[in-house]
Every structure is written in C-alpha cells, then in structure tokens.
C-alpha cells in the first residue's frame, strides 16, 4: 500500500468505522436523555481521528481513551452491545453496568480504559509502552487525549518519559479547540500548532487535519511503523471540532459561525464526497451502509434495554481480586 493512494477496501473500511461511531453517537444522544442516568460526552465530528488511527493497530495493540471515548472503542473493534449496555448501566455492559459512559474498557482488544480525569491516561499509555519494551513484543500504544489535556502536567511527564526511552507510543491530540466551555487559546498560547511541542521532547510531531481520515491514517501509519521498529514515540496533533456540546445537555457557548465553518468540514461528508467523486462508492451503497449500521446500533440499544439491571450487591464486587 503506498503512502497517498489508499486502496478502495481500506477507504471503505475507514468510512464504515466512522459511520459506526457517528450513528452510535447520534443514537446515544437521543436515548441518553430519556433512558440513561449520569453524564455522556459524544464524539460526533471527530470520527476521522479514532478511525484513522485505529486502522493502523492490531488487536493486541493498546489504546488509552478519554471521557469522550465511545469512538475509540468502536474504532478499536469494541462490541456495540456491551457498550450500549454499559451506558444503560446494565449487567451485560463492559463494566457490569457500574461505570457508564465515562469509563468503558475492553482489555481483550487492548482498550485500556476511558478516563474521567483529564490527562490521566497519558502516563498510563507510557507505562503500556514500557511494558512492551520490557516484554519485548512488537506492540504499540495509541494514546488519545484532547487539546485541553495537553495543559496537564501528566502530558509533560508521560510524553517526556516515552521520548527519553524510545517507547512505542503514539500520542494523539484530538484538538477540538475547546475544553468544556473555554476556548483553549484563552489558556494556552501555542494550541493550534501543538506539534512544535514535540521538538521540546525530542520526538517527531505533526499538525494534521483531523477531519481528513486519510491524512490521519497516513500520518499514523508512519508513526506506528517508526514505533514498531523501536524508534520511539510521536505526537500527532489532529485539528477537529465537536458537533455536540461538551456533554449531552450542556449549554453551547461557541460561536455560530465557527460551528457552521466546521460542520461544513464534517469528516464523514468529506469522505463520502471523495468516495463518490472517485467512484469508490455510490449513493445507494452509502444509504445501504448507513441502514445496515443503524440496524446494528438499534440492536445494541435493544440489547441494552432488555439486559438486567445489576443487583445492588454488584456494587461490592471487584474492589479486590483474589
């Protein structure tokens, strides 16, 4: 596979992943309001990043995820039923229904966990990289986090260690310009061209269009190959924008024009247009693809709804293991 021209199957599969995330999240936004408890952060608008990054990963590669983590799970091959059941707080969910939207993980496919503490996953990803080095495998780690997380000390500490020791970790910034209701540029002078920070740690960094799945894919590919061959980590700063409010139900303080600007750059619309133009797909196929995936999502919702609520005593399980 060459660097710029990806083959048709790959593009289709990237597209399908993005669509899965989109339809899962659109459905989640809807069902959350009436059927779930707690809080939920959705990933709509940022799908190209999870899809483009994870397409480069093997099943036994690791990722660490964030509060906005559903997309990462799906892109890494997570089971939508178990995900949705978790969001509903059901026993069949990934975490027995204990932890909900903020805390999904699937260790069987290398998803080492979403995290409610901004930036906390970064040194954990570094540790997974350390473990790969110590165990001598050729796995890699992709570590997802937001532009806000870059202002955490954990970013600095975790990335520095990986760079110092050439650990196989790809640090992926999902740079959506905001941290909750505050524009990141208000608290961070360098925040759109984060790649420059990589130099300060002695590792490669790239600023990329995070709404272009092919750009994300190819940049990650380079970084993953480098990491697998023992050359160390890289930083990918993926510019993007969330379509939703920070969490479902939050107020939106963002500029209308800014929202319009970015919605016009919707990563899914963009790949659909490209595929249509390059005759990789037809309008019909798009529709059937959407229908098929929506069917999967609906099934997941049904599964969740029908699943049992945990008994109260489940709350005392898993404090310690034997």
């Amino acid at each position, binding site marked *: 596979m060459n660097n710029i021209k990806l083959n048709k199957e790959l593009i289709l599969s990237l597209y399908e992943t993005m669509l899965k995330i989109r339809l899962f999240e659109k459905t989640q936004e809807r069902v959350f309001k009436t059927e779930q408890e707690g809080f939920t952060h959705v990933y709509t608008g940022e799908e190209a990043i999870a899809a483009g990054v994870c397409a480069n990963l093997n099943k036994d590669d690791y990722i660490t995820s964030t509060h906005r983590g559903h997309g990462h799970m799906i892109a890494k091959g997570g089971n939508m039923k178990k995900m949705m059941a978790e969001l509903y*707080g059901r026993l069949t969910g990934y975490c027995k*229904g204990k932890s909900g939207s903020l*805390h999904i993980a699937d260790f069987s496919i290398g998803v080492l966990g979403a995290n409610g503490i901004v930036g906390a996953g970064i040194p954990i990803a570094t540790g997974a990289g350390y473990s790969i080095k110590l165990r001598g495998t050729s796995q890699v780690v992709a570590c997802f986090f937001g532009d806000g997380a870059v202002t955490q000390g954990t970013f600095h500490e975790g990335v520095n260690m990986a760079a110092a020791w050439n650990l196989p970790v790809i640090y992926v910034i999902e740079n959506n310009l905001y*941290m909750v209701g505050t524009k990141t540029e208000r608290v961070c002078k360098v925040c759109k061209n984060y790649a420059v920070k990589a130099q300060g740690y002695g590792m490669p960094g790239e600023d990329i269009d995070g709404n272009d799945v092919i750009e994300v894919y190819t940049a990650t590919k380079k970084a993953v190959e480098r990491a697998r061959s023992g050359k160390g980590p890289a930083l990918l700063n993926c510019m993007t924008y969330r379509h939703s409010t920070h969490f479902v139900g939050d107020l939106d303080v963002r500029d209308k024009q800014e929202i319009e600007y970015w919605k016009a750059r919707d990563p899914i619309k963009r790949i659909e247009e490209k595929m249509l133009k390059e005759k990789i797909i037809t309008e019909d196929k798009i529709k059937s693809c959407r229908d098929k995936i929506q069917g999967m999502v609906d099934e997941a919702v049904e599964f969740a709804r029908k699943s049992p609520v945990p008994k109260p005593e489940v709350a005392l399980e898993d404090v310690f293991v034997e």
Partner: protein
Amino acid sequence: MKTLTYREAVREAMREEMRKNEYIFLMGQDVGPYGGEHRVSGDLHSEFGEWRVKDAPISEQGIIGCALGASITGCRAIAEIPFMDFIMLPMDQICNQIAKYLYTFGGQASVPLVIRTAMGGYIRAAEQHSQCLEAWFIHIPGLKVVIPSTPYDVKGLLKTAIRDNNPVIFVEHKYLYGMKGEIPEEEYTIPLGVADIKKEGNDVSVIATSYMVHKALNVANKLEKEGISVEVVDPRTLVPLDKETILKSVEKTSRAIIVHEAPLRGGIGGEIAAIIADEGFEYLDAPIKRIGAKDAPIPFPSVLEDFILPSEVGIEKTIKELL
C-alpha cells in the same frame, strides 16, 4: 429574608467580598464567561472582568500554585476545583506548600486563600466524580476545613473563609447546589469553629456533615413521630472543630452516631468517634456508631450508587439498634 439556592449563596458571598477588596480573584476551569462547571460563578466574570474571574487551563497544580503565589504577594485567591476528586492532582501544592508556608518560613507570610471544591455523590457521576475527601485535609496541620450544609451556612462561612488570613479548604456539595434556603437581607458572617445544632433531641446525638445533615434531619423528623428524640449536630467546620458542642450533646444523650458520606474507613467519623471515646467516655451508654459509604468506589447507576452511599433507611436502622 430572601430565598436563595446554595449555589446562589456561594456566588453572593464571593460577590460581596470581591466588591469590597479589589485584590480578591477567583480562578478555575470555566469560571469565566461559561459560568462555572456547576454554574456557581455565574455572572461574576461580567461584573469583575478577566483578571478577577480567571479561566484556567486544565492544570490543577498550576491553579493552586498560582493561587498560592498570588496570595503571598498581596492578593487573596479563591481557587475552584469543581469536583473534589480532582483535588488529588494539586495535593502537593495544598498540603506541602500552602499548609506549611506560614510555618516553614517562621511566620513571615500568611496565605489568605480559599480553595472551593464540591464533593459528593447521588448524582450518578461514577467513580471519579463523586468522592468526598475532607478527611485528608484535617490530617494536615495548617489547613482549615469548612463543610457547610445549607444556603445560610454556606454564605456566612464562605465570607468568613475569604476574610481569614489562613488557607481554607471549603467543601461544598454538588447535590446541595440546587437546595433553597432562607438568607437574611443584611450582611452576616458565621465564625469558623462553631457547630450548629440543627435539631435538638434527647435520645441520641447524630453528628452529621454536609448533605448527610439533611438525611439525618429527615430521619429525625420521622422518628420524632415515633417518639424517638434525635439531636442532629452539624459541626460545619472540621478544623477548627467545635468539640465542646459535640461532647455536650453526647453528655445529654449518652449515645453518638457519626454520619458522613465518605467511605467509612479512614473518614472523619473515626476522628470524631475517637474524641468522644476519649473525652466523652464517661457519658456513653452504648457503643459509638459510624455510618459512611461502603467499602467500594462509587458506581454510577442509581441502583448501585444508592447501595454504596449512606441512606436514610440505614441511618434510621442504626439509631433504632442503638436505643
């Protein structure tokens, strides 16, 4: 009298004090135009502007360190950590720096700052957004710890905390933000170190904090109809602790139950129980009981969260077992 929510009472306390002293500033994530994670700061940014109501990066160590640096150089900082769970990040700044600054440098510089944070569950926010960690702070000499349970208390205590020349950990409760209460029209403050007997009673003393005060009161009101007279004591501040009021109550009732939301083991219930078991030993007619969260992190769905956290049913049961 007027009616304010707990949230509004906090905001009003800050507004009144900030109007009086131009060197008081509030710093925290999203406290600015957005109005605060829990909408506590509200319109303060539009009244006081960018430098007095400052949006911070997601840098809890930076925020608290910055509050410290400003407070030893002529300002008074109010730092907001919207979920007490996040206070784990700046523990060094709080407990190794702020708490010890005055002492370490032989009294050269006081640290007049307030760290406002919101603890507590019952809001389905899961393991990392529900904790109560007040017990950690009472263990560190040099910090005052305030934990108000009503709109009236929160306003009066916050004003006192802001004026205090020592660092204060000011622990609000997320579930209480929406609770309404009566507040005097005129200005008032409440001193630190004075407990409040929220309900008088003769049969048993229930010492409760924050949201648990309300649960204890509900139980007390219910049991009153059954002829059981429960005294509910709200310490309001943990450092300084008004142990006289607690001991006097136990002297009267001969029975003590301590209720807090934090996990039982290592919670403030141990401290209070130990004080009673030492200084009030002769008053006691029964074992001292503690009620706190069960031994697990806090799961998100109501069915599980309500099982882990203290409940009115549980408080009632313990009272009845003790009598």
